[in-house]
């Protein structure tokens, strides 16, 4: 164990020796703070100024204008898109209004046409009905006349038949037939019967 640690120390001593002057300078600082090693200050300050100027020029010449323009462009695009969306929304509302209006117009038009058609049909129907009624009336009057005629002729026939039959019956009963009396009696019977 002791030998091991001794070996480590010797190798590290060798490394330290290899570091040489850097470590010597390091040791010379005493407190061991490289931050307080003023000999490196000019170097750090020089390279810091170079770095800061480099970053400043890169930012002002390239990066910042580019990012600013991208951000402005995006804001513009978003504003435009929102405006376009508003416009489209208004258009949609208008289109809906127009559609509703057209629909209402079409409906009233349809109602008008239907009413017209209905009245036209009704007129035609009335005419036809009147015509049919007239025809029916004419036909029925004709029929009534014929019926009356038939009835009259039938009645006349009945009178003749009745007189003849009555004369025959009387003759069959063996009585002299008085045609005048038979006819009068039949007439009287018919009238009373009627």
């Amino acid at each position, binding site marked *: 164990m002791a030998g091991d640690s001794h070996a480590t120390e010797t190798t590290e001593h060798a490394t330290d020796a290899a570091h040489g002057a850097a470590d010597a300078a390091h040791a010379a600082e005493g407190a061991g703070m*490289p931050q307080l090693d003023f000999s490196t200050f000019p170097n750090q300050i020089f390279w810091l100024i170079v*770095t800061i100027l480099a970053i400043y020029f890169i930012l002002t010449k390239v990066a*910042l204008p580019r990012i600013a323009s991208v951000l402005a462009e995006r804001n513009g695009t978003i504003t435009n898109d929102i405006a376009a969306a508003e416009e489209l929304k208004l258009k949609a509302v208008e289109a809906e209004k127009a559609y509703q209006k057209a629909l209402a117009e079409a409906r009233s038009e349809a109602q008008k046409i239907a009413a017209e058609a209905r009245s036209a049909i009704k007129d035609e129907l009335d005419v036809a009905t009147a015509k049919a009624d007239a025809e029916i009336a004419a036909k029925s009057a004709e029929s009534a006349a014929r019926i009356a005629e038939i009835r009259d002729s039938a009645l006349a026939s009945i009178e003749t038949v009745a007189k003849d039959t009555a004369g025959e019956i009387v003759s069959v009963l063996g009585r002299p037939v008085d045609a005048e009396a038979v006819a009068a009696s039949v007439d009287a019977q018919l009238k009373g019967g009627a």
Partner: protein
Amino acid sequence: MADEAHGGGISIHPMDQFVVKPLFGGDTVHWYTITNVTLWMAITVLAVVLLLVVGSRGRAIIPTRAQSMAELAYGFVYKMVEDVAGKDALKFFPYIMTLFMFIVFANMLGLLPMAFTTTSHIAVTAILALAVFITVTVVGFVKNGAKFLELFWVKSAPLPLRPVLAVIEIISYFVRPVSHSIRLGGNMMAGHAVIKVFAGFAAVTAIAPFSILAITAIYGLEVLVAFIQAYVFTILTCVYLKDALHPSH
């Protein structure tokens, strides 16, 4: 020094990660030497380019994931400047965005294993804070002239108290860059050092499970701190800027 740290088989060098080293050999660090500072600052610039330039290259109305993140970062800082410092501070937005992107990426990249955290150095944060301090002071005087001094003359206080308050206000004004820079640098350094210390303890079998759990927990906390410190640095910059633009209380 190395021998002391080696006691008990544990070797802990929590501060070694902060050493500034030349990348291509050599011992001395001149102002122009290419060091690990250079490397990690370059990676930071690359990360910023990757997010903000490459990420937004599509310029899409409907953003990709990378573009949303770039836009999110932009919107986050833009809104912060607008809300905290006011609309007239928006011309400083690129400057504040630069600060925020640099600090947030430097902090986050510093959390990668083996990485060098540039913002853990007081040299870096002090320059950032001083730049903000000088900018704010110059803007304050240019915009308001002598009226900028009203910032130190608290009108809502009773007259006898005002000179006393003025002294306190002036001291606090000049302490601003110090607290501004040490807050960021200190947070970064402390977190990384603590992780390193626990990592050192992980070499001992008995403590290793606890040590690894602790590293995990602190790493999670450090991710939070890395973002929050970038946010705090930026929002304080906005607050100072607001004072410069509207100095009267």
